[in-house]
C-alpha cells in the first residue's frame, strides 16, 4: 500500500501505475471502475460490500471521501492499494478537503480504467439532483440507495423526478428474489390476475417499487397494505373470484400457498449489501423494468424515453449559504 499525504492527482496516477507494476498483476483485465462516494464513518461497511462484489467483478475502486468542505486550504490525501481490504481489486481511497471536494472529478478522471464502464455509487446521502455531482455526470451507471436517506419515500419520489436511464436504486435490487418468485408463480397461470395486494410497510421504498412493478406489468392498481414488519411481508394475487395465490416471507423462507395444493417453500436468502451490489454490477445497461416500476410508484411517465446523459449543473454550497 502506498499512502500519500497532501498530494496531487498526478502523484496518485503514478503511485497506481507503480503498484500495478510491482503488485504482481492481480487484475489484468478490468471490467469496470466503481466510484464510491462515502463518509469516513461508513468505510468499514463499504469495504465489506465491495470485497464481496469484487470477488465477482474485477474492477478498480475509487473511494471518494469528501471532508470539511469549509476547510480554508484544499488538500488531497490518498491511499493506493492492490488486493487489500477491498478484496482482489485495485483501490484508491481519496480524501478531499475544502473546495477540492467540489472538483472531485479532476482527481478521478485520470484514474478511470481506459474504456471500461464507470459506475458511481453513493453509499449514503443521495444527491438531490445527480447533475450537481460531477462524479455522477461522467458515470455510465449510477447507483443510489434511498433507504439510507432520512425520508426514503420522499427520496424515491425525487429519484423519479431526477431519473435518467442508467440510474438504479438498491431498494429495487433487494426485491429481485420477490420478483423471481412472483414470476414463477405466474408461469403456471393461464388466466389474467384480477387483483394484487402487497402487505408490508406502505412507506418502504422496496414495498412501493414491488407494487409499482406489479402494477406496471399487470395494468392493475396495486396497493401496499400496512402489515407487521418493516419491509414486505406477503403478496396476495387473485385470479378470478376464488383462486388466490399467497406468497409470504417467513424468515429465510418464502412460502407459496395455493388452493388445493401443498404449500411450496423456497429458500429466501438474506443478501448482504455486497451481494446486492454484485447483482447491480452484473448489467451495465439501463434497467427499463426499474424505470417502469419507479414511474408507476410516482406517477412520472415515460422515464425510459428520457435522454440518457446529464450535463453538470454548477452548485456551490458557499453561494447557497450566502443566499440563505
Amino acid at each position, binding site marked *: 500500500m502506498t499512502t500519500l499525504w497532501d498530494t496531487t492527482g498526478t502523484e496518485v496516477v503514478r503511485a497506481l501505475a507503480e503498484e500495478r507494476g510491482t503488485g504482481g498483476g492481480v*487484475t*489484468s*483485465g478490468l*471490467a469496470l471502475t466503481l466510484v464510491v462516494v462515502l463518509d469516513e464513518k461508513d468505510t468499514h461497511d463499504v469495504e465489506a460490500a465491495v470485497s464481496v462484489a469484487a470477488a*465477482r*467483478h*474485477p474492477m478498480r475502486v475509487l473511494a471518494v471521501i469528501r471532508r470539511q468542505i469549509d476547510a480554508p486550504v484544499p488538500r488531497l490525501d490518498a491511499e493506493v492499494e492492490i488486493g487489500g481490504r477491498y478484496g482482489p481489486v485495485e483501490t484508491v481511497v481519496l480524501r478531499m478537503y475544502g473546495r477540492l471536494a467540489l472538483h472531485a472529478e479532476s482527481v478521478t478522471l485520470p484514474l478511470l480504467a481506459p474504456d471500461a464502464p464507470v459506475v458511481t455509487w453513493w453509499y449514503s446521502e443521495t444527491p438531490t439532483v445527480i447533475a450537481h455531482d460531477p462524479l455522477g455526470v461522467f458515470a455510465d451507471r449510477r447507483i443510489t440507495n434511498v433507504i439510507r436517506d432520512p425520508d426514503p419515500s420522499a427520496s424515491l419520489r425525487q429519484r423519479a423526478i431526477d431519473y435518467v436511464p442508467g440510474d438504479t436504486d438498491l431498494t429495487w*435490487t433487494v426485491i*429481485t*428474489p420477490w*420478483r*423471481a*418468485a*412472483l*414470476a*414463477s*408463480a*405466474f*408461469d*403456471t*397461470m*393461464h388466466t*389474467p*390476475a384480477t387483483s394484487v395486494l402487497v402487505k408490508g410497510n406502505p412507506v418502504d421504498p422496496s414495498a412501493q417499487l414491488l407494487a409499482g412493478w*406489479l402494477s406496471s*406489468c*399487470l395494468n392493475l392498481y396495486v396497493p401496499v397494505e400496512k402489515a407487521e414488519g418493516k419491509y414486505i411481508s406477503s403478496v396476495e394475487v387473485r385470479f378470478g373470484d376464488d383462486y388466490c395465490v399467497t406468497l409470504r416471507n417467513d424468515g*429465510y*423462507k418464502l412460502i*407459496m400457498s*395455493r388452493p388445493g*395444493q*401443498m404449500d*411450496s*417453500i*423456497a*429458500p429466501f*436468502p438474506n443478501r448482504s449489501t455486497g451481494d446486492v451490489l454484485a*447483482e447491480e*454490477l*452484473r*448489467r451495465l445497461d439501463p*434497467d*427499463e*423494468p426499474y424505470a417502469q416500476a419507479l414511474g408507476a410508484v410516482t406517477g412520472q411517465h415515460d422515464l425510459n424515453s428520457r435522454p440518457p446523459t446529464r450535463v453538470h449543473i454548477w452548485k456551490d454550497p458557499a453561494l447557497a449559504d450566502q443566499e440563505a
Partner: protein
Amino acid sequence: MTADVSEQETLEPTTPAASAPLHAPAGTPAATVRNPLRDPRDRRLPRVPEPCALVVFGVTGDLARKKLLPAVYDLAHRGLLPPDFVLLGFARRDWGDGDFETVAKAAANQHARTAWDEDVWARLSGDIRFIPGSFDDDAAFDTLAKSLTEVSEAHGIKGNAAFYLSIPPALFPTVLQQMERTGMASEAAAGGWRRVVVEKPFGHDLPSALELNNLVDDVFGAEDVFRIDHYLGKETVQNLMALRFANQLFEPVWNANFVDSVQITMAEDVGIGGRAGFYDATGAARDVLQNHLLQLLALTAMEEPVEFTPEAIQVEKLKVLRAITLPSDLQTYAVRGQYDQGWQAGERAVAYTAEDGIPAGSTTETYAAVRLGIDTRRWAGVPFYMRTGKRLPRRVTEIAIVFKKAPHLPFSHTDTEELGHNQLVIRVQPDEGVTLKFGSKVPGSMMEVRDVSMDFLYGEAFTESSPEAYERLILDVLLGDSTLFPRNSEVEASWRVIDPLEQFWANHPPELYRAGEWGPKKADEMLARDGRTWRRP
C-alpha cells in the same frame, strides 16, 4: 436470445407443426410470453423451469452422486428450481426415503459448488422420493408410475417429468419398455411434457447408435430426447459461438485463406481409473473423439446459424459433421497409441496393460490422433488435427487456430527467426479463456520479432461464476432448451467418421508411449510430415 425465441414462439399458433403436442408446453418460452411478469428486458429474473419432476434411474451410481445430486442442490441454492419440484430416485437398493435422503445429502454436501445451506437442503429433501426396485421388476415400475401420478397431483407438477437414464446402455431397452408399458413416457396420458436424458456412449458404432436412437426416439419422440455431452455445457464452448458470431474481428479470417491448420486437443493426466471394463471395450476414439472432439470441431468450423435457436445451430453443425473427410492415407494420418509404464508428475505409473481389470494383451487405444479435412469452400485444404489421450503430462482441452504466416516479411530473415504462426487458442479447460499469439518487437536497438501472447482469462474478466456443466444442462432439460444437446443425426454423422477409423485400426496394434509424455512418436511424425508440430498446451 429470449427476445428471438419469444418472437418465434408467438408466431407458432398460426403455423402449428403437425406433430406439435396439444397441451401448451408451459415454462418453455411460449408461456414466458403469456406471463405478464416476464419481460425480455428484465435480465435480473432467472430462467426458472415450470413445475416438474426429475426421475433418476440409477440414482445410487457414481455419476448421480458426484454430478447430478450436487447439481440439483446447486440449482436449488441459486433459486433456479421451480417452487414445485420433485426428485424421484430409482435404483436396485433396499432403501426407504430416509436412507436415500442421507446418501443424497452426503453426496450433495461433498460435491456441491455453492455454499452449503441446511435450509435449502431441508426444503429440497422434502421433495425427494426413493423407489427401490430392479429394472425388470414390473411391480417396481408400477409403484414408480403411481408415485409419479401422486406427486403430480399433490405437488402441482402437472404431469411434467424428465427421466434421467444414469444407467449402462445395455439396460436402456428394459427401462424404456417398462416406461412404455406403464405409460410413463406418454405426454398425452400425463398431461404434461415428458423428456428423457441419456448419457454417452451413444452406441459403439453406427449400427448400434441407429438402433439405440430408434429405440429411445420410438418411446419418447426425437424432440424429447436430450443427449448429454457435458463439454457443451461448459462456458467456453458457448463462448466460442459468441467469439465467432458476435465479433467482427475474427470471422473474416476464419477460413482457408487465412487459417493454416486447426489443432483440437483433449488431454487427460489420469489413467482409466475404475472404468477398466468399459474402457477396454471402448477406447479413446469412441470415448472422446466421437463425441467431445467432433462436437468441438463442429462448433469451430460451422457456418453462422441463421438464428440462435436449437434447430438452426443443429443444421449448421450437421452440415460440418457430414462434410468431414478422412485422409486417404490412414497409415500415416491416423495414429493410435497405448500408454506404457512411465513416470507422471513425480509418481510411477503402470502400463495400460498392467492396470487392474485390463487383459495383458489388450490392443485398446488410450491415445488417438487423426488428421481430418472438411470439404467445404470455407475449409478446403485446411487440416484439422485432433488428438486425445490418457496419461499425458497435463489435463487440458483446447482449440488452437493456427494462422498462415504473412505472405511477405519486409524484415531480414534473421530478424524474424523466432516468429512463429499467429495463433488463436480457445482454452476450454482449465483456465478457461482465450489466448492470441502474435509477433512483437523485442525491445532494444536491433529489429527482432518474437512471439508474445495476449491473454483473456474468463474467470478474471467476468462478472459471474460460471455454473457447472451439469447444472446448466439439467436446467436446460427442465426448460426444454435443446441448444446444447447433440441430436441423433449428429451422433450418426459422427459415427460415420469414426467407423472407418476403427475398421482400419482393428488390424493395427497401438503404438506405445511412455506415461507422462505427449503421445507416441508417430503422432509427432504425422505433423512433421506436413511441416508442422503439435502445440504444447
